[in-house]
């Protein structure tokens, strides 16, 4: 095999600049792919973690209208599998042209938001609210939130006194996920919106995680008009969103990789033409075609490895650099970017695939020619 490496190393040395530029073209595509996957994974992980924090229940029953009688909560509490059940109201309103999510929760549960409290305190009585920092208000401010007519039975304005400000859920890195939460005591909200003893969501925790699936099935069967979610089903929705995002990312990085493959193909077609005499000579000497192909393969692996490693390093550190740059620009993008072995595998496999697609076809065509065909071609 020493002669295979002698040929491969000799040719690589002779065309080093060309091959390194080819590796660069592949490396750029790989770097883009790795960076997008790294960011996508980090974002998904961050959203998942935050989702579990925002949504601490094992099961949630949700209705678009505030039409679930509160006694249902008591019925659920009496279920042997249920640890806790809390009825809440989740509705929307408008503040300064921004859509806000108004959450009415029992006062005894309000300290759930304590972890994210940035300044001020939590609501202690009706009319007080803790709000998300994304709204740009401070403790002491008074908020006038216009309610949607469908919920309150006409245009209604809620006046709340801001007593506390909490950090944004999901850290506000994706505008679409910004909740603009306004958390108020449940009974005060029911009273001021005229919904009476009705809620539109019930948060349930179970005594044992094994109860989640059977209870979920029972609730879906019993409350056919309401939507029933578990953390798993919510994550499925998140996963669907991320799958869609990943498709977009794949198209972007795919375009870069296809360009890299075309560039490689063009460069290697020229190289193959240049090496025609050399292949003819080697074959006339009796060097087996298999060994000639192996020497080409060795070069392809070398190009792919250089491109892959460079792409992985640039992609990973590039993703970190972009994150830092966004944070520096005041955009809250503090997602946890960590290196995983699968990024290396993805980068190297992609690099090898692109190099093989772009390289093997032109060189294989020449390497398969019989020596006399090559000799006649060069005459």
């Amino acid at each position, binding site marked *: 095999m020493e002669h295979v490496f002698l*040929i491969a190393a000799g040719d690589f040395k002779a065309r080093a600049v060309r091959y390194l530029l080819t590796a660069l073209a592949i490396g750029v595509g790989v770097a883009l792919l790795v960076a997008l996957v790294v960011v996508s994974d980090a974002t998904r992980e961050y959203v998942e973690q935050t989702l579990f924090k925002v949504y601490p229940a094992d099961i949630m029953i949700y209705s678009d209208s505030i039409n679930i009688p509160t006694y249902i909560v008591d019925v659920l509490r009496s279920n042997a599998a249920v640890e806790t059940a809390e009825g809440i109201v989740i509705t929307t309103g408008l503040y300064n042209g921004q859509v806000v999510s108004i959450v009415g929760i029992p006062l005894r549960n309000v300290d759930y938001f304590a972890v994210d409290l940035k300044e001020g305190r939590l609501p202690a009585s009706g009319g007080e609210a803790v709000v998300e920092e994304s709204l740009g208000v401070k403790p002491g401010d008074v908020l006038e939130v216009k309610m949607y007519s469908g919920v309150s039975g006409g245009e209604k304005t809620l006046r709340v006194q801001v007593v506390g400000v909490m950090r944004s859920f999901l850290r506000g890195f994706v505008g679409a996920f910004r909740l603009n939460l306004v958390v108020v005591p449940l009974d005060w909200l029911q009273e001021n919106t005229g919904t009476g003893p009705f809620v539109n969501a019930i948060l349930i925790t179970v005594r044992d995680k094994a109860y989640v699936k059977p209870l979920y099935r029972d609730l879906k069967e019993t409350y056919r008009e309401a939507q029933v979610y578990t953390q798993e089903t919510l994550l499925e929705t998140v996963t669907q969103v991320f799958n869609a995002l990943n498709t977009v990312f794949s198209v972007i990085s795919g375009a870069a990789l296809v360009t890299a493959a075309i560039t490689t193909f063009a460069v290697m077609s020229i190289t193959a033409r240049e090496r025609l005499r050399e292949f003819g000579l080697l074959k006339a*000497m009796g060097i087996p075609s298999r060994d000639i192909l192996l020497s080409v393969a060795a070069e392809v692996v070398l190009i792919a490895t250089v491109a892959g490693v460079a792409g992985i390093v640039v992609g990973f550190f590039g993703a970190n650099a972009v994150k830092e740059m966004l944070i520096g620009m005041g955009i809250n993008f503090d997602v946890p970017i960590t290196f995983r072995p699968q990024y290396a595998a993805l980068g190297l496999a992609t690099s090898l695939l692109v190099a093989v697609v772009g390289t093997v076809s032109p060189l294989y065509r020449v390497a398969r020619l*019989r020596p006399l065909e090559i000799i006649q071609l*060069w005459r």
Partner: protein
Amino acid sequence: MAVELRNVSKIYSNGAAKTVALDGVSLAVSPGEAVVLMGPSGSGKTTLLNIIATLDRPTSGEVRIMDIDVTKLSESQLERFRLKNIGYLFQSYNLVPYLTADQNVALPLMALGVKKELALLRARVLLELVGLEKAARLYPHQMSGGMQQRAAIARALATNPPLLILDEPTSNIDLENASLVLGLIYVINRLLKNTVFIATHDPDVARIATRVVYMRGGRAYETAEPPRRDFKVDMERAAAVYEKLKHLDELIGL
């Protein structure tokens, strides 16, 4: 017999048009002979050379080299056969451009499975045989045409092949170098006892031949009288290098 051709024909077809390149050529060559093929362009010299070198297959007839019917071998078997048995020299472009002279010479040996160090050692002795001991580390572009051709002869001898085939070996080099190359082929044929085939237009090449075959219209004609070999070379120096080569070959097992 080193080479035996029986009624060999080669016809090239291009649609309905057919060109007869070789027309029933028969030839029997014993080991150690130096056969010079002469004739005008298109007479079939190179076609015959390519068929003997196993680079081309005849349309009909039998080609036996070292008593093996090479027309029955597969492409991969032919590659192996060429590597062990045939040293081929083209008119030009005989060296891999990105390898040094000694690497070029060592390459076929390494392909045969000889370790790199031993292959390079033999390569340097062969380069000494062709008078290029000081050019071992030079790349082809650093050598003159004559030096390249001599290095290519060393490369063709790398695996100690019983058959050496040279296509117009002196056509692309100056007179002085042509004389050097011819002297070298003569010495090699005398010392190493390889069977040599040379296709040429140059009547001077006949001075190193044991047989001269004239080609015309794809047919081979032989002179009744053997040519006079009158080439003057320094056999003593060559013999000293050859002794080194023999010792090395015992070590390598060639």
